[in-house]
């Protein structure tokens, strides 16, 4: 990996973390396309009230995109921290899956 690319990738990660930290708390709270359709066409009550993901240990820490230890009156911080955590987790997982998958045995020319 050329050094310039390394800097570029570092900047990319920094941009992603900044979006998670500083933009996601200010995301529109309006229902998205599917939620809006579910409300208008009255099928949103079909949503499972006790989804299986709520049984997982992660739900002790995260209530959707909000970290539970942060008091309710600081919703933006709770969202920002959840966003930053998730961003780092997918970064690490995708990197690890790539690393484990890519065959790296070819000799260099």
């Amino acid at each position: 990996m050329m050094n310039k690319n390394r800097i570029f990738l570092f900047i990319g990660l920094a941009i992603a973390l900044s979006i998670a930290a500083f933009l996601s708390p200010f995301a529109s709270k309006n229902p998205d396309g599917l939620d809006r359709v579910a409300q208008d066409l009255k099928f949103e009550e079909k949503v499972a009230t006790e989804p299986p993901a709520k049984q997982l240990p992660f739900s002790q820490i995260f209530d959707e995109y909000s970290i539970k230890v942060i008091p309710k009156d600081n919703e933006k911080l709770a969202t920002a921290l959840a966003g930053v955590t998730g961003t780092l987790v997918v970064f690490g997982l995708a990197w690890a899956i790539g690393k484990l998958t890519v065959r790296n045995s070819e000799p260099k020319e």
Partner: protein
Amino acid sequence: MFALPIYLAMHIPDGYLSLSVSLVTGIVAIALIALSLSRVQSEYKERTVPLMGVSAAFIFAAQMVNFPIIGGTSGHLLGGTLAGILLGPWAGSLVMSVVFIVQSVMFQDGGLTALGANITIMGLIGTFGGYYLYQLLRTLIGRNTWLGMSIGTAIASWTSVVVAAALCALILALSDTVPLVVGLTAMLSWHFMIGIGEALITLAVINFIWNTRPELIYIAPNQDSAQVTINQDDE
């Protein structure tokens, strides 16, 4: 409104899909992920790996940022076409799968029983359908030209959102959640607009990379094929 909490999850939740639809979409997702793993193993090089991490990070973060459209509705990036253009369909599909798995497992966004549907519709439609449409348009207009890249990117990313919305309406209808015609009409009317947001964000990102580190793009400009790009060694 009853005492329902404000419902902020953004993907298909548990309860909307029938068992058979969940199973079929789950099998489709698993099959395409398995195929992607094998193609990444045989075709990709080490230099793609960090870009997979950064792409996943960016798409996860950007998906959190709902942007308002008209009529009290919002949309957010899907990112499948973006991942496909940057990483090619195979590594792009792995990245999108990681994003949706983490969203549903860690953040209860998108039901676990709907995970296969969410990965397939919002991820793989972009990484495969969006990617191949982009590749076709870019080849037709001029594969090394900015115009070819930008028209291919914009049209493919918009189309991927519209097709995703249509497929979502279809599986909701197959699950007897909402009749096809009303569901399709409603989904398409919002996602025609949400798709414009997808196209703007995808084009902004790809344009930035095109102007700064074009060799990072899967089909890099001024090279014979994607294979050359991946095979480049570090110089």
